[in-house]
């Protein structure tokens, strides 16, 4: 692994055309993922996390419009992912440089072939040295479980198969979209431990997760997304320990071992995002200044970031 590798995303936006409206799913996301580190991405259901990951790999449907830049730097000539052809993405990027663990893995498995056949195919295509059994064992699957068809796998087993397939080609950058759904605690610890090992061995991880406790253990940095925008970014312990954006504070308080109360109100419709701060209708700290969009400044996009007020 070389230190020259890096994913540098600059002003990434995605919108979808649907009859009579445009859905703004990602707005001007700027961030970096570096070898040796894990960036966790969290945020309310529907805020744009999965779309962001899919955009980087050219996996969006035809009604999507993507703008901005995402540079995959890997020593030689960098590849700009958003403008790259499907041929380049398929031949050079997907599975080889960037591995995607998709959310809802069962829907990404081919129903008519066993888990083993699908894992072996990935191993073959990507020229991996590991066997299907080795890879499966790494994610906590027994060899006999690999001989089942997707519909014969439990939710957690399908997740483990997807994790093994995504990492078969030993990519240096892993995009993991909810990689622990359906896993019990020991398996969650194991999967998260594996992601951390990958980082420590010099790979880079973008981890989308609902599990703030796991993020705190595994990630170095945390990015918080709200209604298509990154609203707070920083070292994970700082962001979770002392949230500065009111939305982050609400998300932290919603955990079942905290207040377990949802952020009040509904997320805005991404088809008609309000001018100004999108969190205004639910914030409780808003003033007239919030009618102007808050710029990202010092890791937080809020006119009245919490620490400022407490100071």
């Amino acid at each position, binding site marked *: 692994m070389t230190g020259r590798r890096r994913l540098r995303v600059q002003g990434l936006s995605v919108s*979808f055309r*649907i*009859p009579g*409206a445009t*859905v703004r799913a990602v707005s001007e996301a700027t961030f970096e993922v570096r070898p040796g580190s894990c960036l966790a991405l*969290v*945020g*309310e*259901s*529907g805020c744009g996390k*999965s779309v962001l990951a899919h955009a980087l790999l050219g996996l969006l*449907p035809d009604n999507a419009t993507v703008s901005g830049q995402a540079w995959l730097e890997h020593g030689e000539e960098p590849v700009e992912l958003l403008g790259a052809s499907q041929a380049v993405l398929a031949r050079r990027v997907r599975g080889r440089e960037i591995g995607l663990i998709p*959310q*809802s893995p*069962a*829907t990404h498995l081919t129903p008519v072939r066993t888990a083993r056949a699908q894992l072996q195919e990935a191993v073959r295509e990507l020229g991996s040295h590991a066997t299907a059994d080795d890879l499966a064992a790494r994610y906590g699957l027994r060899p006999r*479980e690999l001989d089942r068809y997707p519909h*014969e796998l*439990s*939710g*957690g*087993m*399908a997740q*483990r198969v997807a994790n093994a397939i995504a990492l078969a080609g030993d990519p240096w950058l892993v995009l993991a979209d*909810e990689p622990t*759904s*359906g*896993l*019990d*605690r*020991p*398996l*969650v610890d194991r999967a998260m431990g594996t992601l951390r090992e990958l980082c420590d061995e010099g790979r880079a991880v973008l981890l989308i997760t*609902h599990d*703030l406790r796991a993020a705190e253990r595994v990630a170095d940095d945390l990015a918080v997304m709200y209604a298509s925008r990154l609203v707070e970014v920083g070292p994970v312990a700082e962001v979770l320990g002392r949230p500065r954006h009111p939305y982050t504070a*609400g*998300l*932290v308080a*919603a*955990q*079942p*071992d905290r207040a*377990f*109360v*949802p*952020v009040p109100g*509904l*997320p*805005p*419709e*991404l*088809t*008609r995002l309000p001018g100004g701060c999108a969190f205004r209708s639910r914030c409780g700290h808003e003033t007239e200044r919030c009618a102007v969009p808050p710029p990202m400044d010092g890791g937080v996009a809020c006119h009245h970031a919490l620490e400022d007020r407490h100071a």
Partner: protein
Amino acid sequence: MLEASGITVRYGRHTALDETSLTIMPGKVTGLAGPSGCGKSTLARVMALMLRPASGTLTVDGTIVTRWRQRAARELRIRVALIYQQPRLAVDPRLKLAEVIGEPLTANGRPDEGRVTELARETGLTGDLLTRWPHEVSDGQLQRACVARALTLEPRYLICDEMTTMLDASTQAHLVGVVNAYRERTGARVLAISHDPILLDRWADEVVGLAGQGDLSPS
């Protein structure tokens, strides 16, 4: 009472449940935990009349179930609703979100747009989402629709199979709140299946553990 007694389920040579018994008590939230692959979803499908066991009996409010799936007696079937672990596998991709939610009403010959709108609102789905196809919404938005769908016919028993396994903390708290409010309003009983001990500790009145092959133990 919804009572599963001595339930055995085999998939080919693999025994997923071996004489497992579980009763969902009136007025309570029963939590069900256990390692991945131990048979929780299998038990959920049996208790929702969606899977016929090799042996054992399922009793719904005193009536022993003799027919399963589409052939099950309608008045028994609608008493139990199941929220599936994987929303993408649980909806018909040819239905728009409003139709997904209203499906049980339509299937029972009493479509009710007002009820669909009300449930969508309660589960936190904004109006713009209701005219979309399942592939045009996020996984969590689809799961909200599945929760709304499960409540349309006002079941007396609600089985939540990893309802919130991939949802952010706020959405999780919201949906648990929706189920609790429904339970308080109607007196329905809830079986909450989850891998998250902290969630079950917060949500359930009692937690039962399922080990391999369906051995139950209090935990």
